[in-house]
C-alpha cells in the first residue's frame, strides 16, 4: 500500500497550511486554509454554497494550484511541476465527484474501475484483483460487465466510490455523497463508507449525514476554516450554524446522535 512513506502514525493523511487561492479572473476563493486530518479520521467539510469547498478539494490533488500555501498528502508535498509526484498524489487522493456520470465514462463498469489503477501502470492479474476487490467493497461486483448508464443512480454512486478505491488511496474525498440518493441508497452508502478502513474527507450540506458518518467537522466559510470541532459540538451550536448559512433539517436533534 503506502509502504514508501508515512507508516508512522505521526504523519497526517492530509496537511494543508496557509492555502490561499484566487481564480484567474481575480475572484479570491481561499484566504489561508489550515487543516490537518490524521490517518483513519473521518471528517466532514461543511459550508454554504460558494464557500470554496470545491476549490479546496481541487487543490488536494494538484488540479488547482498557483496560490500561496502548501498541501501535503501522507507527508508528500503537492508539487504541480513535478509530474511523478503528481501521479503519486493523485493515487493518494481519491476524489469521488458529485455527478457519477462525470466520473464513469468507460463503456463498462469493469473498465471504468480499471482506468485509475491502469494509469498507475498496473496490468494483468493484479489489475483484475484490484477491480474485483474494489467492486466487492461497495457490493457492486455483480454489475461489473454492464454499462454505467444502465445502473441506478445509487449504484452509479457506489461504482464511482469503487473507481477511487481501486487506486488504494490514502484519503477518500467525497463531494456531496448523499445528494440525489433515495433513503435506502443513502443508508447503504453510509454503511459502505463506515465499513471502509480509509481516511475520509466528506464535503456536504447534509448535516445528519455528517453526524452519522464523521466524528469531526470543519466549517469552511468565506475562504477560511471557521470552525473545527466534534460534529456533535458543531451541530449543537445554533449560532455558529446560522452565521455560516448552515441549517439542520426540520425535526433533527443533534443531541440524540451521541454515539
Amino acid at each position, binding site marked *: 500500500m503506502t509502504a514508501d512513506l508515512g507508516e508512522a502514525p505521526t504523519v497526517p493523511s492530509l496537511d494543508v497550511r496557509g492555502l490561499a487561492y484566487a481564480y484567474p479572473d481575480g475572484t479570491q476563493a481561499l484566504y489561508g486554509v489550515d487543516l490537518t486530518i490524521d490517518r483513519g479520521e473521518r471528517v466532514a467539510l461543511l459550508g454554504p454554497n460558494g464557500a470554496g469547498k470545491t476549490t479546496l478539494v481541487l487543490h488536494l490533488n494538484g488540479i488547482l494550484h498557483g496560490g500561496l500555501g502548501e498541501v501535503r498528502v501522507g507527508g508528500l508535498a503537492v508539487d504541480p511541476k513535478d509530474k511523478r509526484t503528481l501521479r503519486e498524489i493523485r493515487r493518494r487522493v481519491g476524489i469521488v465527484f458529485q455527478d457519477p456520470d462525470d466520473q464513469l465514462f468507460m463503456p463498462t463498469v469493469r473498465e471504468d474501475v480499471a482506468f485509475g489503477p491502469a494509469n498507475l501502470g498496473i496490468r494483468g492479474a493484479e489489475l483484475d484483483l484490484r477491480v474485483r476487490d474494489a467492486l466487492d467493497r461497495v457490493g457492486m461486483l455483480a454489475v461489473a*460487465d454492464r454499462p454505467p448508464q444502465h445502473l441506478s443512480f445509487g449504484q452509479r454512486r457506489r461504482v464511482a466510490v469503487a473507481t477511487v478505491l481501486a*487506486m488504494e488511496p490514502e484519503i477518500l474525498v467525497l463531494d456531496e455523497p448523499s445528494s440525489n440518493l433515495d433513503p435506502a441508497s443513502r443508508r447503504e452508502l453510509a454503511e459502505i463508507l463506515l465499513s471502509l478502513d480509509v481516511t475520509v474527507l466528506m464535503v456536504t450540506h447534509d448535516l445528519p449525514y455528517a453526524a452519522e458518518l464523521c466524528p469531526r467537522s470543519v466549517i469552511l466559510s468565506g475562504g477560511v476554516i471557521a470552525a473545527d470541532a466534534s460534529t456533535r459540538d458543531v451541530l449543537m451550536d445554533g449560532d455558529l450554524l446560522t452565521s455560516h448559512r448552515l441549517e439542520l433539517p426540520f425535526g433533527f436533534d443533534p443531541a440524540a446522535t451521541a454515539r
Partner: protein
Amino acid sequence: MGAGHAAGAAHRLYVPGASPVHRLPPQCKLVAVLAFVLLVVATPRERFWAFGVYALLLAAVAATARIPFGTVARRVVIEVPFVAFAFLMPFVASGEKVTVLGLELSENGLWGAWNILAKGTLGVVTSILLAATTEPRLLLLGIDRLRMPQLLTQIATFMLRYGDVVAAELGRMKVARASRGFEGRDLRATRVLAKSIGALFLRSYERGERVHLAMLSRGYDGRMPVVHDVSATAAQWTAAAALPLAAAFVTLAAWTMP
C-alpha cells in the same frame, strides 16, 4: 428497461450471438470489410454477374453469423436517400439517350445509377453485417488495435458512452418545455428549439470539462491505458480473409474476362 443483462449491454445495431463471425477479433473483421468494399468498388460496372456473386458471398456470411435476412433488409432502408439520387441520374445526365417506356433516358445516367445502387447496397450490407456481429466498444478496440490515432478512438468512445446521457438530457428538456405549455407547431418554435440546442451544447461542454477533471484525478495523462488486449491469431486472420479473398478472385475474373 429491466430486460436484464443482455438487453443492458446490447446496442441497437448489435445482434447478440456466438457464431464464428461474432467471435472473430474486431480488427480482423474491420480489415476484411474494408478490403471487400474496396474490391467491390474496383469492379467494372458492366459485369452484372460479379455483383451477384458478391451478394451471394455476403449472404453466406449472414448465414454463418445467423443474422436473419429480414433484419438486414430492414436496415438497408438507411440508403434510401442515396437510392433516390441514383434514380434521378438517368433523367439529368447527358450523353446518348435511350427510350424506355416512352421516357428519354441517358445511357450514361443509367449506368451511373446502376453503379451507385449495386456498389452502395453491397457496401451498406457489409457494414450492417459488421455492426450486427460486433459490439460497438469492441469495434473501437479493433480500430485502436489497427493503430488509429488514440485521439479519434477516444472521441468515439466518449460518443458511445455519453450519447445516451445527452439524449436523456435532451428528453428532459423537451418534457420541461412541454410542461410549460410549449408546442413546436410552426416556424416560431425554431427560435425556442435553437436556444434549447444551444443550452444543451453548453451543458455538454461543461460536462466534458468535469469528466476531464475526474479523469485527471485518476491519473489520466493523455493516453488511455490498454487494459484488455484483443489480439488475433493467424488462424483468425485467415478466417476473416476468406471473404475478401473470394471477392478478389471475382474482381480479378471481372477484369480479365473478355
